[in-house]
């Protein structure tokens, strides 16, 4: 089936404006400009599109929160993409940037924004270059700037590069960063839709979310809703990594099962060396780990509910039978300790202590008491932090303790057969 998002895999050089336009590019924007902003928002709302940045918030609904008639409104594309195991926005920006730009422009028209910033992580040099080229092409062709396509709609767009901080993917931290401050979240409310960039109403949407918008406007909400499930409509890019034969991005219609994703030849093609599956992180380092019993769950926002996990931004990390789960939890916690912005004590101190304890346990110096303290520290972080990073940090710990208690016990008894990933 032809791709809806990763269209560069079907059409060579679609990153060039002329090629993109030959294949229907910017027709959706043209169509949107003949509609009222409210009509555009309603189509997106009716399509069931939900945020692809992890939280799954309904996109059209988010746009309606922007106060009517606000004078200064901003749209910010969230291309910070720093969750471990996630690499979809980079591919979109590098190979199909115009689709992201077109989606962002339609969003800007719908909410009355005159300026769009694309906040990319600072490491996105090649992707950023491709995106900047596309922006230049748009200015030259009258698709950005004053009176776009001869309409009354005017809008500017600029790239922005972060500087290495996972927390800047959190929307309020992102906005603080964009305002030249430390990238630390603020306590919501105020929500960005009311008080965002420069204290003005702001839409923050993920790169992939916006890449869905042109096709929705062109083909209609019913077409979009015909794909996926009732609560999870449309296509989703899944980032598959770890112990699989063919890691990479795969565009799937939501509802495909994790087992199909891992084993089908057109996707992951199974586990290297014919080894057995052991565990999967379905949402990078930030969601709970699941075991084999979850493999027949569909890839949807609701699919992993009964297995105590989440789809998140669909960064699926596969681990085979040789993987040490204590080591895995230690790697994840190390990430969160490094990335905690330090604003609230439970997260800043808690991730530090979890990191210390996991190192001790992993290296065989831990005791049963350390294990008890580890659980207690995790319990004290949960639900007590300003942003979700604190909750993310305890997920790999508590879920590995729940699913693989014997591995922790073997470590503290000094008879673990596993040793990291060697």
């Amino acid at each position, binding site marked *: 089936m032809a791709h809806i998002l990763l269209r560069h895999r079907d059409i060579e050089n679609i990153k060039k404006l002329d090629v993109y336009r030959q294949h229907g590019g910017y027709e959706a924007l043209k169509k949107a400009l003949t509609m009222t902003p409210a009509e555009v928002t309603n189509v997106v709302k009716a399509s069931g599109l939900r945020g692809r940045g992890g939280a799954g918030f309904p996109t059209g609904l988010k746009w309606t929160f922007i106060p009517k008639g606000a004078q200064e409104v901003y749209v910010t594309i969230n291309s910070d993409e720093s969750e471990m195991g996630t690499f979809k926005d980079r591919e979109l920006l590098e190979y199909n940037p115009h689709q992201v730009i077109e989606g962002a422009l339609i969003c800007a028209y719908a909410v009355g924004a005159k300026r769009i910033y694309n906040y990319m992580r*600072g490491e996105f040099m090649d992707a950023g270059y491709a995106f900047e080229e596309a922006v230049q092409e748009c200015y030259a062709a009258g698709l950005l700037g004053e009176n776009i396509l001869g309409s009354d709609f005017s809008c500017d767009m600029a790239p922005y590069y972060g500087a290495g901080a996972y927390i800047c993917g959190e929307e309020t931290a992102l906005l603080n960063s964009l305002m030249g401050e430390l990238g630390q979240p603020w306590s919501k409310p105020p929500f960005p839709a009311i008080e965002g960039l420069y204290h003005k109403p702001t839409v923050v949407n993920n790169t992939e979310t916006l890449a869905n918008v042109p096709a929705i406007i062109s083909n209609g909400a019913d077409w979009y809703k015909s794909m996926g499930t009732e609560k999870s409509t449309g296509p989703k890019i899944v980032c598959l990594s770890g112990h699989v034969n063919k890691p990479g991005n795969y565009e799937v219609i939501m509802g495909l099962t994790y087992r199909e994703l891992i084993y089908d030849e057109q996707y992951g093609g199974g586990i290297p060396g014919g080894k057995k599956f052991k565990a999967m992180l379905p949402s990078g380092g930030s969601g709970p780990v699941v075991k084999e019993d979850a493999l027949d769950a569909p890839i949807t926002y609701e699919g992993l509910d009964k297995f105590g996990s989440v789809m998140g931004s669909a960064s699926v990390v596969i681990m085979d039978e040789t993987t040490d789960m204590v080591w895995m939890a230690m790697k994840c916690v190390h990430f969160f300790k490094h990335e905690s912005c330090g604003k609230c004590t439970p997260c800043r101190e808690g991730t530090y202590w979890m990191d210390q304890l996991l190192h001790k346990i992993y290296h065989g110096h831990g005791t049963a008491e350390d294990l008890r303290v580890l659980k207690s520290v995790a319990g004290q972080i949960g639900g007590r932090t300003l942003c979700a990073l604190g909750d993310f940090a305890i997920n790999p710990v508590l879920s590995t303790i729940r699913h693989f208690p014997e591995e922790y016990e073997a470590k503290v008894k000094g008879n673990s057969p596993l040793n990291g990933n060697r």
Partner: protein
Amino acid sequence: MTFTEKYAAEIEGIIARFPHKKSAVLPLMHLAQHYYGYMSDDAMREVAAILDLDPTHILSLAGFYTLYYEEPVGKYVLEICNDLACALRGADQFVEMACNKLEVGVDETTADGLFTIKTVMCLAACDRAPMLQCNLKFEEHLDEAKFDALLARLREQAAAETIETSVVEKITAYAKSGNQVSVIGNR
């Protein structure tokens, strides 16, 4: 020449992108670091002066964001991702191999001032592990042979450029001024 003089046009262009010039601070710090090699006192003072900010604000930003180097680094900074998804495909072993080959530890610079090795969190290229970024440019699907080839290519490139304002001098000057020198390493 200061970076403010050299990049006057670029600086003006960046500031014009925002309704409030404070937003230009991260981009200007990227540019200053590109010019000075790291966030030197001069780099921070100049950015602060351009944007009418307190230099301590620049200092705290440099500490918060990992892409800004607070100490001088080698001409080529090899940042190897050894986060979980890459580690499942051999990244930790790759780091060890790279350190042994260059005879440095992580966060250290080779004695010739050419290479600094760092380990970093996920770079959004997990499907191409092991991977690294060399001065932000991604090098993917690596193994020892490809790493050797990369080093050879960089050495050749450096020789052709006859390393301007030698990185080694920069690092030594930094050390002489009484700073800690974890950057010069040979373990």
